[in-house]
């Protein structure tokens, strides 16, 4: 088999950071090539170099594609040759329809007049190909992330793709949607389309990859061939972090005390459709030193529940009682919730978590400026010390804490969001998908920090779509489906099967 792509000696620097240092990667025609590495290792940057986001001249090294050296000066150049990238952050226009999005910039038009019947017909074919049952004129905002991801892929297919690049496509998908997507990749492979897959979910990689290139600190560590022998997840981790990891979850002896946090009869309605109840009579409690999980499928209402609880940030007609240490507390605004000791780290870091144009330092202290100021005046030096402290505690990869959040890798942005809430020193920390897009090594560290928080007598509520994570971390797991809690499992009796069983059973009712 010959190579469709060879990138040789790629070096790319940003002011103060060498993101890529002499990276080599060879992708054979018709294979699924996985690209793995820790947060900030340079995976996304490498793909941006390949697709022309960073044009020729802004990096050194060469790109050989289909046997010829290529010098792309923009995405249009690489797309013309069939290299299509789907970025870590989706890039669809929310208020346009599926068909409009798919043919955006590539309109089915003659003399500038769009032929919608052609566009719709083609869209229908493409949607069938990716297995998405939606009408072409459905608006993007009405689709969940999983479906949006499929639209992105349909869009890629509309462009005669030869090499498909997917940057963490499954990060925000549930298992079922992820599986569907991976199967799609396998189907493409049969049709001779090559793909490069970036993911932190190593089980997926073991499942579909033909070869794996490992990046570490901006350099190539090795390329593993999965066809010759099967590669274990532990083997991949060793390459990524440079050591073996015995456990994925840090050990902890839970010291659980009395109930400290209680939510009773919590209900919330959809912000636009006032008759749609999104959160239905939720009752839950957290004990001192306990890590409690909420399992459920994507769209089960977990985020909506958490956000409605946190200062009524979601929904309307919210009712219910919240008490901390036996006393009812007011959580009607975010400010009150925070000052009463509740923190909520969002799952959507770009929209709700970070001020992207500000530096790490300012983002870390934003929710708790009182902690670094006196009489409304900020103590620069103290603030800097706090930021540097979290930088090393959370191992945020950056040139310094004055780096703007927008320039951080996805996983490192996530760590900044977590730092912000840890610094607010909450009694109850609600984590919504806290390890989305985070590499295995850093996950371990974040788990350690969560454990430490619990050991200090705080309560943690963890929402996650990765069931192994919940099973590995929590002391107790609630299962949510369609806005209600349908089961409560002690960790001793909990298992993936039991959780799925509960969901399926409640769905049938």
């Amino acid at each position, binding site marked *: 088999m010959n190579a469709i792509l060879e990138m040789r000696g790629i070096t790319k620097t940003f002011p103060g950071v060498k993101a890529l240092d002499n990276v080599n990667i060879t992708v054979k025609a018709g294979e699924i090539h996985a690209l793995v590495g820790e947060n900030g290792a340079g995976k996304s940057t490498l793909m941006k170099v390949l697709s022309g986001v960073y044009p020729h001249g802004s990096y050194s090294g060469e790109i050989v594609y289909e046997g010829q050296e290529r010098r792309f000066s923009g995405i249009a150049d690489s797309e013309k040759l069939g290299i299509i990238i789907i970025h870590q952050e989706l890039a669809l226009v929310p208020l346009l329809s599926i068909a409009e999005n798919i043919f955006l910039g590539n309109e089915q038009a003659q003399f500038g007049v769009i032929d919608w019947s052609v566009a719709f017909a083609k869209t229908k074919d493409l949607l069938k190909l990716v297995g998405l049952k939606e009408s072409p004129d459905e608006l993007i905002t009405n689709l969940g992330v999983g479906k949006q991801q499929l639209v992105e892929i349909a869009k890629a297919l509309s462009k005669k793709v030869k090499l498909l690049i997917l940057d963490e496509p499954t990060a925000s998908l549930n298992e079922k949607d992820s599986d569907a997507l991976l199967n799609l990749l396998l189907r493409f492979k049969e049709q001779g389309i090559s793909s490069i897959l970036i993911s932190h979910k190593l089980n997926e990689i073991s499942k579909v990859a033909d070869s794996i290139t490992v990046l570490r600190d901006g350099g190539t560590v090795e390329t593993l061939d999965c066809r010759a022998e099967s590669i274990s997840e532990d083997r991949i981790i060793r390459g990524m972090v440079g050591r073996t990891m015995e456990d994925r979850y840090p050990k902890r002896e839970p010291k659980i005390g009395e109930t400290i946090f209680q939510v009773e009869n919590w209900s919330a309605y959809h912000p636009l459709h006032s008759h749609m109840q999104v959160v239905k009579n939720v009752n839950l409690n957290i004990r001192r030193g306990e890590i409690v999980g909420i399992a459920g499928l994507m769209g089960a209402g977990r985020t909506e529940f958490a956000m409605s609880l946190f200062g009524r940030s979601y929904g309307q007609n919210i009712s219910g009682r919240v008490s901390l240490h036996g006393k009812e507390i007011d959580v009607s605004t975010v400010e009150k919730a925070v000052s009463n000791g509740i923190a909520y780290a969002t799952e959507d870091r770009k929209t709700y978590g970070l*001020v*992207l144009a500000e530096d790490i330092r300012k983002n870390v202290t934003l929710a708790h400026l009182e902690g670094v*100021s006196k009489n409304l005046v900020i103590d620069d030096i103290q603030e800097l010390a706090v930021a540097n402290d979290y930088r090393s505690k959370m191992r945020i990869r950056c040139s310094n804490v004055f780096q703007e959040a927008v320039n951080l890798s996805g996983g490192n942005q996530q760590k900044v969001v977590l730092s912000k809430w840890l610094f607010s020193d909450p009694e109850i920390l609600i984590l919504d998908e806290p390890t989305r897009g985070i590499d295995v090594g850093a996950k371990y560290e974040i788990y350690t920090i969560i454990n430490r928080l619990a050991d200090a007598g705080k309560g943690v509520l963890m929402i996650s779509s990765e069931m192994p994570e919940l099973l590995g971390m929590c002391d107790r797991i609630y299962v949510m489906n369609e806005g209600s809690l349908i089961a409560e499992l002690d960790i001793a009796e909990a298992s993936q099967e039991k959780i799925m069983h509960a969901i399926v059973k409640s769905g049938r009712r």
Partner: protein
Amino acid sequence: MDTRTADEIQVPQQKTSWMEFVKTHFRDYGMLLSLLVIMLFFQVVTDGTLLRPLNLTNLVLQNSYIVIMALGMLLVIVAGHIDLSVGSIVGFVGGLAAMMMVRWGFDPVTTTIACLIVGGMIGAAQGYWVAYFKVPSFIVTLAGMLVFKGLTLALLGGMSVGPFPVGFQRLSSGFIPDMFGGEGFNYTALFLGVASVAAIIYFSFRSRANQLKHAVETAPFGLFLFKNALLAVLVVAFCYLMATYRGLPNVLVIMAVLIALYAFVTNRTTIGRRIYALGGNEKAAKLSGIKTERLTFLTFVNMGVLAGLAGLIFAARLNTATPKAGLGFELDVIAAVFIGGASATGGVGKVTGAVIGAFVMGVMNNGMSILGIGIDYQQVIKGLVLLAAVSLDVYNRKK
């Protein structure tokens, strides 16, 4: 376990050289540099008229209200909004002051206080719709612009009202009297200049020492010295020139105090920080426990008060209130803030930038008037300079 800390992983920080530092901080210095170049240009083409003490005094007086409003506008723009009504507020408050003193017999102090409160109330009325009803600020203040332009006409009955009591005129035409009784030379002006230079140098040395102690990246020492020396020379030279004429105008002192105050508020206080966060990402700010609505509201109240103050100063300067006062001021103010490097999408902008921007506009107005360029071409040139300045800034940011 891997025990490296983040510090060890990072690329070692080289000692920053002059050139590199200037390059990375070009935006900070670039603006000041362009102001100096523009001043130099007009100094030459006007045969030295620009920097004559009399003209310099005029320049300050003509510009003070723009600078003062630019401080408020900066906050509004950083918060992600715009205020088109400030010109009309200037006219309205000026008219109100005239009516109160000339027709209704109030004394200057009561009038001033009342007018500032009215300015704040106008800001509050507009801020209310923007902050709590989420009506776009562009629309609300466009409405405000029309409303207050009309109300000014109605209030003054379409006529000019003046002149004002002498005490009120001092606001604009008064000078800080000389405590040392110099003849033809105002020692107080020079003294204030030297004192403020000393204070600036003291604080910048102290903060540098602090930064060094905590290993923050700092400007190379040479550049730091150069910057401070340049600033010192400019301030002292300016005060010296002013001293040879009539000393420091009262307005200048008000302006300087306000600039220092707003620079401090934006850089060092929690409220300043929160305004930037609000403009940078309102949703994230809100989910961080910031009362975004109230903060937006307050930036508009603040803008109203400053526009009221500008209205008073402008009326005092003309010594009469006319229905046309303040016409088009909003354009100069907004232009000043954008020339100063603020971002139209919010979250970015500096007080020093806005002040420099205001002076760029001011020097051009003044210089072109001296040259006898008509109001027609003045506008053309100012428009082009605005476009050039912002394009250059956008280009620099992309690099």
